[in-house]
């Protein structure tokens, strides 16, 4: 719903001062294109495009000429540590590398919000940690808000604000202390919700 992919049955969603309710499908799509970035669990890269083309895809979709965006794309790839692999296709990259490309892609249009759906769910712990560090760093550098959905307490511990959901309802909310104790604290809350 936050991404404008689904409409709420009641209530209202306002992104960047704009109520989503009043927008047509095309306008909603354009808002999504320019204001929101997406990161999926299974990366969702296009197999026919190289890494840099995948990163430039949101701009491509926006009708921009990629040759003019070259610096930005290269910068994003350097930022995620894949500057050397810009010509590789997804099938030539590891899972962690593919997710890095997906992260770079999510920031391609300098969005205000990045929605991440289990971004580490399909990665081993080392690659997962690298991605989370990267997300944190990128978020700080580019000044975007990241909304991440996860079952992983370690991934959740990177967030500044935590909202716990159970059966579709908010059951708990807390600010993060920014320390390693946080993982344990999140696990405790999850255990209490299960009980």
């Amino acid at each position: 719903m936050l991404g404008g992919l689904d409409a709420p049955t009641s209530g209202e969603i306002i992104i960047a001062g704009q109520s989503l309710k009043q927008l047509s499908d095309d306008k909603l799509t354009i808002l999504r294109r320019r204001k929101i970035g997406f990161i999926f669990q299974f990366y969702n890269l296009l197999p026919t495009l190289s890494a840099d083309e995948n990163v430039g895809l949101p701009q491509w979709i926006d009708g921009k000429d990629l040759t003019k965006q070259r610096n930005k794309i290269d910068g994003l790839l350097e930022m995620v540590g894949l500057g050397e692999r810009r010509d590789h296709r997804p099938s030539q990259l590891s899972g962690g590398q593919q997710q890095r490309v997906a992260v770079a892609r999510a920031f391609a249009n300098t969005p205000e919000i990045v929605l991440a759906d289990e971004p580490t769910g399909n990665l081993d712990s080392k690659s997962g940690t690298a991605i989370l560090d990267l997300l944190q760093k990128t978020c700080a550098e580019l000044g975007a808000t990241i909304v991440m959905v996860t079952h992983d307490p370690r991934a959740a511990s990177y967030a500044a604000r935590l909202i716990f959901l159970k059966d579709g309802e908010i059951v708990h909310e807390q600010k993060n202390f920014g320390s390693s104790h946080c993982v344990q604290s999140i696990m405790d809350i999850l255990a209490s919700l299960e009980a």
Partner: protein
Amino acid sequence: MKISGKFPLLLPLRLAFRNMQARKLRTLLTCTGIVLGVAVILAISMTNQSTIVSLENVFNEAAGKSNIVISPYDENSSGMDGDTIYRMDNIPGVLYAAPSASAASELAERSGTGKVSIGLGGRSKSDALLLMGIDPKLDREVRSYTILQGRWMEAERYEVLLSEQFMTENELKLGNDLTIVTPSGVERLKITGVLANSGAAVANSGNVGFIPLQTLQDIFARGDKLDAIDIVVPNELVESQDKLDMLKNQIQNKLGKEYLVQYPASRSQVVPQMLFVYQQGLTFFSAMAIFIGAFLIYNTFSTTILERTREIGMLRAIGMVKKQIVNIVLTEAITLGVFGSLLGVAFGILLGRGLIPIMSNVMAKDIRNITIPMDGLLLSLSVGIIVTLVSALIPSIQATRISPIEALRSVPKAESKLWRYLWLIGIGLVVAAWLLIYRIPFPRSITFWTGICGVLLLFLGATLFIPQSVGRFERIVRPLTTFFYRNEGKLGSRNVERSPIRTTLTVACLMVGIALIIGMGATTNSFKNDFDKWILSALGGDMLISSPIRLREQLGYQLASVPGVKYVTPRLTMDVRIAPQSIGEAGMNDKLQLNAIDPATYRQINDFQFIRGQGTSEQIWRDFSGGNALFLSTVTADRHHLKQGDQIYLETKLGVQPFRVAAVVSDFTPKGFIVYGSLKDAQHWFGESGVSSFIVAVETGTNPAEVKSEIERRYKKAKNITVFSTQELKTQVLSLVQESFGLMDTLNYIGIIISALGVINTLLMNVLERQREIGGLRSMGMTKSQIARMVISEGVTLGLIGGAFGIGVGVVLARLMVRAMNVLGSYDLELILSMQSFIWGAVIAVFVVQMAALYPAGRAARVNIIEAIKHE
């Protein structure tokens, strides 16, 4: 523990049904592919068979119960003596001997306004009325008559029974007088009965009347002469061929050489050459339909299996053995194959019923006997089922080779090394096709089939070139799709490289469809070009003047004196018999139609189209004018293995006489076995006086219609002539040719539909397979119209690659088809490619494909983003 590959019997069936139900759209697409493939095969077989059966039936019905037919050996004689019938009296085994005589006539009120329509069936339908003089007491024992109104005729009266068709067409009523033209003037016959359009009344395409024998002999001044005696024998003789042979020989011996004793079947016309070639064209198309249909079915099934790789992995993981997996897939294939084939049969019958009237028009003959041939039915059913099974078997075996873990992970399969070298096999197949068609000499009887195999090998060979060429072609096409569809065009274009097998099969479907259009277009064009040349030379002049009875040669001088007439040339048409010296495999009783002309005046109006490489026109005409020489139509020359300079022996009134073959000429006269000789020779060797028709050319600047009126005013009644405008004849003949290729066009459209279906199928599969990806793109900000443009541009890229291959292969196919026409149909056609068919090919490659892509594009645009990204 031994793992059993057996299942509870109904489980595979249940799973198969569930699968088909779960993937309704795909099931529908696969089924449509099978239905169309089967339907085309059956419809073509049905059209061919119905045509042949109808032709045979006309002769069989007209011949009735007759077992043996006696006729004069010399067809140009005045007939058999009337007392021949009494010579049958004492022959044991002869139950009835029914005499008959016939004469061609015309309705007096219609005389001079006659219209001829010509068909590929070998005989023109015309307003000319065939009058059969029969013995009223005896003939119903021999031929079958169904009287709808009125009564049977009485002997010696001036009464006539007409077919219902003739009565309706000429607005005649029972009790009216039928006024006809005879050599002695106009005669009246009372219409006493109307006959159903069956049995004896189907003769001469229904333009037939039956009158008492003696009346016919009186009004046509035939004395007591007969044209035929039909013999009916008892049943016990009918059942024994030996006894019947003995009786036939006995009659022949008793009557002597002046008579021809035959079985009615041997009177059946040979299937005319143009019709034969036409039917072979249909059969060729049918083979191509199997090819495209098979690709379509394979494409759909292989994708279905690929899509279920994960499901197969799961089934394997929980303990299903490979054989069981194959069982499930095959059960699904058999179910779909049987269901689709049965539906295809039903649709094929409907399609056949739609094609038969077109064929009927083309032939200018009614096709009354719509038959569903058992062999065609079985062939279409088995092709439908077997191709479906094979299409399912290969991918299902491939699927079981993937390990359960790989399958569950849905790891994309690495490209097989073999895939990269398929083009080498392609070269091998193209070389094999070339050898089969051009190099290996096969017996003539199987040339057609080896040709079809050659073309199929060519198509297969070209198909194997596709996988390696797709990438290169895509890069060439990409700027174009980017220009029209912007960045989405670039994305869509690249997608064609993602499913090499699917892309290959779709491009192959398009390639075959477009190649057939180009091949067929070139054949039609080459044929029309040759035909136009022939029609210009053979139907020269402005008028054709003819009569049902022989005209006197002096009429030519009278016609020449009519103001405005520039040239007049006579023509005599007669049947001649080829002598045993010239008979090869063609068999006995082979007749030729001799058109006798006067070379000097003929050349002022008309000319011939000599086949290439026979010397100059002047040399040929000089040789012909020297006498005892003939021009042979290509069909006649081919049938008797004759060429320029050879001798052909004909039976003449003065004995067997050799004639020199002065040249072989292209001739599209429907009857086919035509020779041209000089009028002088016809008069000398065949004792003919009179002529059949005159061709008249008018002075430049003169209105032919005015000259026609003047000729009619002077001679129509006095000489019983009919004046045809050659321009009208040309228009009719050309429209017939146009119409005959209309049937091929119809089949081309079916080919286009099948190809378009292939594109819809592939794009739809791609859309279904890429739901998650499309969902991802939508969530990233791609609008619905951008998604649609991306899918359409993928279709366009497929279309353009298919078009490029189709045009290349089409040009080769065109050469092969024209060559086949020349070899099998004894033509001398020159290949002329049709620009129109190239335009059609391009239209299909670009526009039809875009239309076909609309539905998958719409579906892709409507993808529910939430559902799609949940696919993870």
